[in-house]
Structures are given as structure tokens and as C-alpha cells.
């Protein structure tokens, strides 16, 4: 049960972030940082169906995390979800076609191990 919830959390978080990144990439680089311009950007972005799906996935992840906290300690829950760093990097390379070189892989792996230890 514990591990099933961890899998649900990791998958839901990764899909949510992937959809969000995909939506923002599709929108294109934001250049204008004036409040009015930013307001227009976000009102457009939040109407994107990808953002809607992303929010649903985030909610699934949040409630699965709450469920996990009922059956496991926080010191298990947080380090276990450090796996999202690895899953998201793999998905960013495969789905978003980002070029993840050796240096970035090494960095992401170090960060994942670091988050695991810090949360322990």
C-alpha cells in the first residue's frame, strides 16, 4: 500500500509538471514583465486544457500524499518522493525532447540523492 501510494504520487507529480512545462514551452518565452502583460499571459495560460489536466494531477498527487502520511511517517514519505527528480528528467528527455547530456544527468542524480538525504 505504501509503495503503491508512492508510485501514484511520483507519477501524478511528474505528469502534472510535464504538462505545465509543455504548456509554458508552447506559449513561448515571456519577455514583458509588466503586471498587465503578465496578467494577460497567465489568463491565457490558465485557459489551456493542459493546465487544467495539470491541476487535476497535482490534486491527485496532493491527496495521495495525505493518504501516504496516514500509513507512513513523513521521514519515509518525503525521501521516497525524491524519485520524481529522476522520473521527470527521463520524461523531459523523452517527451519534451530536451537534450539531457551527461553533465545534466549527473547533476540531477546528485540532487535526487541530496534531497533523499536532506529529507531523511
Amino acid at each position, binding site marked *: 500500500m505504501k509503495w503503491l501510494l508512492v508510485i501514484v504520487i511520483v507519477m501524478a507529480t511528474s505528469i502534472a509538471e510535464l504538462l505545465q512545462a509543455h504548456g509554458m514551452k508552447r506559449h513561448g518565452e515571456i519577455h514583458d514583465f509588466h503586471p498587465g502583460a503578465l496578467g494577460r499571459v*497567465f489568463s491565457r495560460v490558465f485557459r489551456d486544457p493542459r493546465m487544467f489536466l495539470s491541476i487535476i494531477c497535482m490534486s491527485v498527487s496532493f491527496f495521495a500524499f495525505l493518504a501516504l502520511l496516514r500509513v507512513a511517517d513523513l521521514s519515509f514519505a518525503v525521501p521516497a518522493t525524491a524519485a520524481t527528480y529522476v522520473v521527470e528528467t527521463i520524461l*523531459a528527455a523523452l517527451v519534451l525532447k530536451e537534450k539531457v547530456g551527461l553533465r545534466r544527468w549527473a547533476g540531477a542524480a546528485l540532487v535526487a540523492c541530496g534531497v533523499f*538525504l536532506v529529507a531523511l
Partner: protein
Amino acid sequence: MSGLVARLQFKTRLLAAVVILANVLGNFFLSLGMKAADAGRFLLAALIDPWVLLGIALLTLWLLSRMTLLSWADLSYVLPVTSLGYALTALVGRFLLGEAVSTWRWAGVALIVAGVWLVQRTPIRTTRRRGRSEAA
């Protein structure tokens, strides 16, 4: 290094700093407010606590600034780099809240810093440019 690349790097670092600080401070004020709120009262009462409101405002800033960063930077770049917040949280816990930080946690902080240092030396964007607001 061309001026355009230098500009992108400056913009990215500045916004990454906003993302990291908004997250760390947002969580800090949220936890401060939740602890200060009367334990016997309803959870909803915490929502009018000024520290909780400040925390929520900062976490909203965190979400929007992170989305802005993702409009030009790779997810596989943003994700590790902004995890510097975990390291910062340990430092805030140790030096502002006087919490004990174990050797394992310090080792984790060191790994995160090393990982972020590696990732920030990779190109910020490796995908094709697209979208309507691309004209620069």
C-alpha cells in the same frame, strides 16, 4: 558568449533566485503561522493569520515565477536548479530556527549544491524555439 546568451543567463538566474526564495520563505512563514495559530481552534482560523496569508502570497509568487521560468528554460534544468531550496531550508532551520541538523542532512545539502553547480553549467534551453511571443 553572445550578448543574447548572457542576457538569457542573467534573466534565468534572477528568476531562479525568486523561485527559490519565494518557496523557502513561503514555507517558512506558513509553518510559523500554523504553529502560532491556537491549536484548539478551527483550522480555518489559521487562514486569517497574517503569517499564513504572507506564506500563501509567497507560494503563489513561487508558482507563477516558476511557470514563467518554464516558458523559456528546460524542465530538466529548472527542476534540479530550484531544488537549492531544500538546501536553503536546512540552513534556515539551523541558523534562524536553531534546529539540529544531522550529519546526513549536511551531506544531502552538499550533494544538492554539487548537483546544482553541475546542472547550471548546461545550456538553459535545448528545445526548439516556438510560440507567439518569441520575437526578441
